[in-house]
């Protein structure tokens, strides 16, 4: 029964159905399913979504909707894991992530993938200001910036400069349609990630987190 629900939850993510994902997650938790198992399945579902995007079988807004469905489910699953004292799932590190522009394409997916991979993620939302980034910087090891519009590149550079001036130990990873490796280096970022999977890999490397077997 539980396996059937898990399979349906994974399909709900792939078909970008937030309502169904929420309902199935509630049912799974209600039946006493291990929240770590649910989180792992969500990560599996998101990986499949990423693969479908790479294969051009999903479009970017569909990926975003799938990521939103994952977030809705994780909003129930993560507290359930934490309420067990975090023994089952220790955090790989703390990351804050925000979007420079009004749109959060990419950020939502990266955020959900990071959470699924075992990082504590502080979502800084959209239209990120230097002040909000500065406030967040003291509690995290990495800040991720999603830069979709070229008009936001300078603001990203300003955020990176101000945060690093204040707290040099914070590392920045950036991604999004407006940037590439070269731009990332120019604005002072420590790393550029082409997609959500790469963001997870970078975060692991930055924090020396153990790769999964």
């Amino acid at each position, binding site marked *: 029964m539980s396996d059937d629900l898990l399979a349906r939850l994974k399909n709900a993510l792939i078909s970008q159905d937030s309502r169904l994902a929420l309902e199935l997650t509630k049912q799974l938790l209600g039946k006493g399913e291990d929240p770590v198992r649910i989180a792992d399945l969500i990560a599996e579902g998101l990986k499949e979504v990423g693969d479908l995007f790479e294969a051009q079988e999903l479009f970017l*807004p569909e990926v975003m*909707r799938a990521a939103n469905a994952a977030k809705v489910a994780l909003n129930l699953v993560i507290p359930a894991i934490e309420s067990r004292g975090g023994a089952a799932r220790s955090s790989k590190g703390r990351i804050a992530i925000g979007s420079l522009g009004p749109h959060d394409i990419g950020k939502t997916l990266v955020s959900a993938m990071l959470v699924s991979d075992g990082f504590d993620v502080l979502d800084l939302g959209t239209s990120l200001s230097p002040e909000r980034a500065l406030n967040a910087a003291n509690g995290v090891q990495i800040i991720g910036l999603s830069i979709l519009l070229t008009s936001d590149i300078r603001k990203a550079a300003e955020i990176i400069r101000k945060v690093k001036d204040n707290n040099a130990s914070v590392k920045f990873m950036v991604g999004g*349609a407006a940037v590439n490796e070269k731009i990332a280096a120019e604005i002072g970022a420590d790393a550029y990630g082409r997609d959500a999977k790469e963001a997870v890999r970078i975060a692991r490397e930055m924090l020396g987190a153990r790769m999964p077997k």
Partner: protein
Amino acid sequence: MMKIKTTVIGSHPVTGSGLEAIEVAVRDQIGAGIEIISDGQTRKDMIAYFADHIPGFELNEGRTIITGKISPPEDTPLVRDLIHAKRISAGASEVKAIITGPVTMAFFSELTPNAPYSGFRDEKLYTDIGEALAVEAEIIGKHGFTTFQFDEPSFSIGAPMTIAKKALEAVAANLKGTKALHVCGNLRRSFQEIVRIEGIDILSFAFKDNPGNFDSVDKKAIEDHGKKIGAGCVSSMENKVEERGAIRQLLDRIFTTYEPENIAWIHPDCGLRALDRAVAVGKLREMVRALREAEAKVK
């Protein structure tokens, strides 16, 4: 040799607000020697520009949301900006109307369950946006504007191209004048479908920050489909004016690869809003000078 015109893709660094910002953008472009200018797109981002008055869209805390059936607007505030730009230009340059394409309007919006569309694969979503934009363009055309550019950056990130082609063709179908399609980014996935879109005269692509496009953009396909190229030759990301020699070098490669007869426009790779104003103007000025030097060499 056909005269190659200099133009911009759209946005300009914002100085001031409202009509004043448009005036600054227009004067900057004319001062740099640009022949086909924009109004600077100084008011809003490329989605909100249209979503703020097309029924079916709503703006909420900076997000664009599709909440109902998308239908044509009765009027467009764009006309006011374009007329202002034309007045400031006083005939020194032509003013181009820039319209965000149906797929990009959809992709950068949130689709709510209340909207009568089943998802981002629902053809009706793009048809409805296309019909709304067709009316938008028609209103602009009635005010005497004859050069149009549709922006579809979403084409380079994966888009439903069969549906996109139909929607864009519907927007362009009854429009009189020169019609261009701008797609920034890497065209590896989409060029072969983009070049088949009917009713579009000029295909505008980025070559400076996407040199891989030399491999994707096929000269024969351009000629076979009766298109001309708009070639991006200065960066819209790097906040530094390129050396004229470097722009010349890129132009030489563009001319050698595609032949000058197939080039209608040269322009920056994308909008310049993110740059310092002095840098943006410097890039435009050097681009214009580099083209004139390159043309003189070809002659």
